[in-house]
């Protein structure tokens, strides 16, 4: 059985449904920003 971080789940269970969804949206926005930064970095190192 893979390890599951219960502390993260317990934190989420304190939130309303909408709060959980909004928190996830913020994570997705951060992921998108990191992807853009990574792409920019790769383009820079390729000399583009």
């Amino acid at each position, binding site marked *: 059985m*893979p390890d*599951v971080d*219960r502390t993260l*789940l317990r934190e989420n*269970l304190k939130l309303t449904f*909408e709060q959980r*969804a909004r928190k996830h949206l913020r994570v*997705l926005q951060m992921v998108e920003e990191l992807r853009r930064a990574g792409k920019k970095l790769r383009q820079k190192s390729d000399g583009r």
Partner: protein
Amino acid sequence: MAAILHGSARVTFDVDVVYARTRDNIECLTTALAPHRPDLRNAPPGLPFAWDTKTIRNGLNFTLTTDLGDIDLLGEVAGGETYQTLLPHSFEVEAFGIRFKCIDLPTLIRIKEAAGRRKDQEAIAELRVLLEEIEKKPG
């Protein structure tokens, strides 16, 4: 998204929507998504795809890209479950100013297990722990 609403800490990049395959609902679905340029995800380039009621009626499950993001429209999920069979196992959520149905956690686990996909094993483990945590809470 159901997993997120139940408290999952895992990230998901698409939304799965089980839709009722009634004539009226298919028309509503077609109209609602049309402005957001739905197209088949991972389809060969140039493959013709018409977003209309005929396409939805002739198909069942669609993995789509849209201007809103990736959406999986599912007429049927693992175990032969449909909108109608899942309805008694769902509850209403209000978020972002709208109301929608979400399946309950035991049913979500059951569907993922029925799908039998290797990639879901960790997600299922987390959902089982979530269920334990919820059942532990008083009230």
